[in-house]
């Protein structure tokens, strides 16, 4: 019977696909498999690309190719004068996807917004742990879990978030993937059927593309949503062809089996630029790779020692050898694409003679130190071992002896956070959202000492500025505070800022209107394909 049913479905699909033979299809050869299609529990960009950025919307969205925010499912919003309430006015007439497993009977409304957040907040909700071990990592780590006091349904199309504290950074988290809006009506249907786990495998959203099918580790299929609130997409079908190996992705692109690919091998980029059938887009990544000294330990507790060491690092050599040209020397702890970036900062010059002299002036001689090299490849540091070796050579040139240490990734993350950690650590960060706080406070604030603040640096003048910025709602005012904080950072030098990666997106010339996203999101809203 089961076989018969499958055969009948196969026949029906065959006819459907045959009818749509002329459909415009965009093939994106993605780098991996999504963990699931519920946009909230996961933390990997691969999962976000496949779920939240295709199938779902948020109340506030990032404008395509920008970190600027624009209205999404909320047409407008306002924050109360005391910063304790945010009221969203919802867009009307927004439809949820109709799929073989769900037919919505109503449009999107306030109930969906409340459900989308409360399932992550309310531990007594059956949805809080609807699959074994499910956790709401971003909801917790961005502080949403502690920031929301209650969510009030003002009317069908107005929702008020009552907060526990005035925090200017909270608004920046609404465009994040975990804040995607899901259908309460669909959740109720699954509840009644006792099949909650399907929420993660058979998604329903309001986004530009409707989920069609997922063949594990192979292909994800989507169809443009005809009733999308912002208009149907120029392409009809979107396919994610999962292709793990970057070399193979490149071959598929050249052979015309893919239209667009992420994360090419740096060594292949020049060849692709020379191919007349391909267009190669490049943009600074929203990340930072750094070397964090332990500012609690001598002699790294002295800013003059840290500044001297920074002058000994030849960043250009690192960019050439480690990033193979796909990197940019980092001056500030923020990427240049952030609105909080202080473009007036001047980087430490590469000057080994001055570095040696300044070390001597600080009374440091015969220094021996450890440099920790990550065992994994990350966007902000494609080869930490090689980077450590170059730093080792640079420091040797000024008489500092470096021992390179490395260990398993989980251990590395845990041990590098220890207050008494020996030496300087290579690490980095990719922004979760567009707010400068996500770099300047998370990585360098006093709260992060012993955890994400690997420099163990708690400097009160800097801390006062970033805390003040958190409660300042005027963006221009906040920018001034962050500019000042970055000047202090540069003077105090808790890190050697090494590089921001350059993100490369190669595509066939037929792909039109693709906008590279500074946050590393891959989304296909508005993308077209010429014949």
């Amino acid at each position, binding site marked *: 019977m089961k076989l018969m049913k499958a055969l009948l479905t196969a026949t029906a699909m065959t006819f459907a696909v045959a009818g749509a033979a002329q459909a415009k299809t965009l093939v994106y050869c993605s780098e991996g498999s999504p963990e699931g299609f519920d946009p909230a529990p996961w933390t990997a960009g691969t999962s976000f690309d496949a779920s939240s950025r295709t199938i779902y919307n948020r109340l506030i969205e990032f404008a395509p190719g920008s970190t600027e925010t624009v209205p999404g499912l909320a047409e407008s919003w306002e924050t109360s004068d005391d910063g304790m309430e945010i009221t969203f006015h919802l867009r009307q007439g927004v439809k949820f996807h109709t799929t073989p497993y769900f037919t919505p009977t109503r449009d999107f409304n306030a109930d969906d917004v409340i459900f989308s957040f409360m399932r992550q907040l309310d531990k007594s909700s059956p949805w809080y742990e609807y699959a074994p071990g499910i956790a709401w990592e971003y909801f917790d780590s961005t502080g949403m879990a502690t920031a929301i006091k209650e969510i009030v349904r003002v009317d069908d199309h107005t929702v008020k978030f009552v907060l526990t504290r005035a925090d200017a950074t909270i608004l920046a988290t609404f465009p994040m993937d975990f804040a995607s809006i899901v259908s309460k009506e669909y959740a109720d249907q699954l509840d009644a059927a006792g099949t909650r786990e399907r929420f*993660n495998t058979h998604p329903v959203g309001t986004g530009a593309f409707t989920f069609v099918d997922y063949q594990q580790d192979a292909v994800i299929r989507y169809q443009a949503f005809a009733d999308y609130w912002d208009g149907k997409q120029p392409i009809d079908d979107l396919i994610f062809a999962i292709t793990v190996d970057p070399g*193979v992705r490149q*071959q598929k692109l050249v052979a015309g*089996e893919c239209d667009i690919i992420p994360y090419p091998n740096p060594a292949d980029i020049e060849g692709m630029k020379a191919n007349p059938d391909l267009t190669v887009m490049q943009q600074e990544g929203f990340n930072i790779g750094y070397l964090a000294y332990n500012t609690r330990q001598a002699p790294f507790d002295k800013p003059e020692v840290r500044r001297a060491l920074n002058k000994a690092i030849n960043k250009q050599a690192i960019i050439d050898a480690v990033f193979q040209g796909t990197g940019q020397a980092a001056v500030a702890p923020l990427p240049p694409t952030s609105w909080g970036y202080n473009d007036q900062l001047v980087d430490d010059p590469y000057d080994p003679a001055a570095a040696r002299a300044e070390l001597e002036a600080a009374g440091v001689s015969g220094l021996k130190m450890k440099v920790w090299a990550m065992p994994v490849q990350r966007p902000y540091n494609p080869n930490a071992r090689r980077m450590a070796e170059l730093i080792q050579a640079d420091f040797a040139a000024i008489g500092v002896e470096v021992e390179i240490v490395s260990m398993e990734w989980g251990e590395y993350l845990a041990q590098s956070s220890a207050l008494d950690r020996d030496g300087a650590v290579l690490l980095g960060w990719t922004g979760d959202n567009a707010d400068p706080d996500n770099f300047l406070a998370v990585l360098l604030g006093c709260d992060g000492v012993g955890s994400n603040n690997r420099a163990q640096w708690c400097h009160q003048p800097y801390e006062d500025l970033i805390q003040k910025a958190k409660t300042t709602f005027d963006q221009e005012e906040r920018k001034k505070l962050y500019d000042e904080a970055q000047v202090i950072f540069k003077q105090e030098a808790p890190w050697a800022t090494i590089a921001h990666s350059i993100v490369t997106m190669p595509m066939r010339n037929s792909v039109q209107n693709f906008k590279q996203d500074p946050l590393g999101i891959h989304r296909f809203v508005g993308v077209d394909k010429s014949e």
Partner: protein
Amino acid sequence: MLRFALSRLLLVVPTFVGITLIAFLFIRILPGDPVLLMAGERGVSPERHAELMAQFGFDKPMWRQYVDYIGQLLQGNFGHSFSTKRPVLEEFMARFPATLELALCAIVLATVLGVAAGILAAVKRGSWIDQATMGTALVGYSMPIFWWALLLIILFSTSLGWTPVSGRIALTHYFPSVTGFMLVDSLLSGRPGAFASAVHHLVLPTIVLATIPLAVIARQTRSAMLEVLGEVYMMTARSKGLSPSRVIGLHALRNALIPVVTTIGLQVSVLMGGAILTETIFSWPGIGKWMIDSISRRDYQVVQGGLLLIAAMVMLVNLTVDLLYGLVNPRVRHV
């Protein structure tokens, strides 16, 4: 024969228990903490860490975790993936047909070509054919799979455009999976060109995966054939005036095949290892890549369950080979 079969079956039980223990310990011996790896640079507070470890029972003593695991297994429950939160058995079954399909094609190709090459080399012993065949087999055996696969892709897919770069079927063919075997599903779909596309996509991964087993089978067949060809009864067969094809095909090959059958059985486990790289390069959605990812994420339940299920498959193949061996060679039934 029944006694022989039972003795082989009984051996399976302690082997299986041993594998549960090895699978359980293997992933735990590796340094690394699944929660820390999941959190990455973002980190996790000690309270949250403890909470997540408790959710999966990782906070319990090791022996207790093993007992729970065995209890769970006895109820047919392989646990849930720490990463995707989905049942391990469901994840395995979604991927296993792809691996099995590729492995079957590879072993068939390796056996047919390997046995033929081995016979040819043995019959033409010392000739240039023998040297060329065995030389090629040695090259095949020493070939780094990753390099070999990329070379074939660049030559046949990108330069000549004869084969697709990767995947199981052209993206234009879309039909629901019925059996999980693309060759079968494409036939069932009734879509014109679907089966041909599935075969087309199988060509390069099958060649790559078959390369090492083919070389081993060819070498084994040659040496077994040479041994048999030197036996007195072969001289008798020839002196009786039997045709060379009858002497080789009927008398020599039948006896030479006995060790070759064992070799083919052993190659199945080699194929599982080779599948990991082959699947990665050809974006083949099988269990190889899934297992590698799970090890790097320290997804305990997936690694345990996956290893156990793979081991069960390998044991089943070896048991079948043992029984076949008993049938082909009655002397072993009494050993």
